[in-house]
């Protein structure tokens, strides 16, 4: 009945949705933010631990939400580990473009592998009301990096 939804709910999404990676508190985190999508009641909390040199040593999250938002947060934490803050921001921008349009023609060189990893979420662009589910984690990342402690909202 729902075979044509396999584009949106690829196996990797369902898998990350069911068993999100890095789903824990980070006791020794240096940055933290909450994210909130009031419309659907999605809530998440994100922790980052930055190295002295400004790269992201660790990232973890907890929260509740749909498969898309859990999978997106899970993939996000995996992807940003080891990245510089600048690259993390760049990834976030590119991911938002991907989620909204399905492609990312302006994707800067050097992050191809990371974008490849996030590609399973591109199907969301056909579901306008679901785009926010996919981008919530990245909004929360921004707010953790920019603006310690302030709540992020994908509204």
């Amino acid at each position, binding site marked *: *009945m729902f075979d044509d939804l396999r584009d949106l709910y690829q196996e990797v999404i369902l898998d990350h949705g069911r068993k999100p990676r890095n789903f824990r508190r980070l006791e020794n985190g240096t940055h933290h933010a909450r994210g909130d999508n009031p419309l659907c*009641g999605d809530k998440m909390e994100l922790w980052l631990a930055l190295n002295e040199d400004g790269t992201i040593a660790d990232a973890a999250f907890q929260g509740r939400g749909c498969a*898309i938002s859990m999978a997106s947060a899970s993939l996000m934490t995996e992807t940003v580990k080891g990245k510089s803050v600048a690259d993390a921001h760049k990834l976030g921008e590119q991911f938002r473009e991907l989620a909204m349009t399905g492609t990312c023609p302006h994707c800067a060189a050097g992050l191809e592998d990371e974008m490849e990893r996030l590609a399973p979420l591109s199907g969301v662009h056909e579901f306008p009301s679901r785009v926010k589910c996919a981008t919530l984690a990245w909004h929360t990342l921004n707010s953790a990096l920019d603006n310690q402690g302030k709540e992020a909202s994908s509204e």
Partner: protein
Amino acid sequence: MDGAVNPRGEADFDVERIRADFPILATEHRGKKLVFLDSGASAQKPRQVIDTMIRTMETAYANVHRGAYHLSETATAAYEAARAACARFLNAPRPEDIIFTSNSTMAINLVAHSYGRGIMKPGQAVVISEMEHHANLVPWQMLRDGHGTELRVCRITDAGELDLNHLAELLADGKVGLVAVTHMSNVLGSVTPATLIARMAHEAGAKVLFDGSQAAVHRRVDVQAIDADFYCFTGHKLYGPTGIGVLYARAALQKAMPPFLGGGDMIASVTFERTTWAEPPAKFEAGTPPIIEAVGLHAAIDYVEAIGLPAIEAHERALVDHAMATLPHVEGLTIYGKAQDRGGVFAFALDNAHAHDLSTLLDRAGIAVRAGRHCTEPLHERLGAGAGTCRASFGLYTTKAEIDYLAEALASARRFFA
């Protein structure tokens, strides 16, 4: 499909004939027939309503109350006839007991200002319930924070019914100025015992407001029989247009309350120093009212009255019975709310499927249901469903076949997420 004669004997409720009145039900979405189970959020519009609005704009439109010319007289008569239709619909004593607003939310905000700030004293309390829509919660929080009233929350039972013992406790100290509760939950479908609540409120010296946004769509309401002080509903859920709501307010209260909004048409005389208010209900209707919408709402009321509220109630009861007999067979499905007296609305959740994902799947099958917390965040916490639920809500065009199809789609969704 079902129709013609059903087990309860409403022989003349021909759902197929009714469906033919709603142009949108014939549309397809991504190749699927529309199965619209979100009437509780907003109902679809029958041809009769659409045509009346067209006719008004094409042949009889002008601003009301302000012109002595023929077209304006015609428009004014139509607007006032809509008021009279609303009064009849609620069995209000007089047309003037009806105030037009922009929706239910505005109706409740009006009461929160004109009665809450205007008449209630700081220290008095407002009682709401755990299952209120935010429209009947946030205005009372704002009143509390701005005016110093207390906000008391009446519990619901695990079946989703108002806990009348708790209500009695909350009323006991005589400090309650207003009981403001839903007449039917937009999540659980529970219908509250309005007459009893009104009696309890009045005996404790409180006024009572019923949020009839859902109830008025599903059954006959009689504000005099209930003995309501305030009763509101919203046009777009009653098969009418957006942009219009209705507040019944008892004549003596309308007289006593100060106005809420200032502007044209609500004054008797204005100088820069001092303004005197027009008589109610004009006093509460500032500016150009929703004229086209009032005429459309009148057509919607005529439409549902021609079918008959008792017939609609019976039809929806049959649908709910059918749903409650069918859906529990879907493995992993939880249905919220088990009130004795309930209308055609219920929330549900499927194990392992977040409400949002589930609604995306159902949408792919052509089924429109809402996902989220349906503007009842505290109720969802109370239900242990803070992450949200899906909600199906029926209209007079809903069929049993659609419910069967929903059951099928849910079983299939369960396999999808397994």
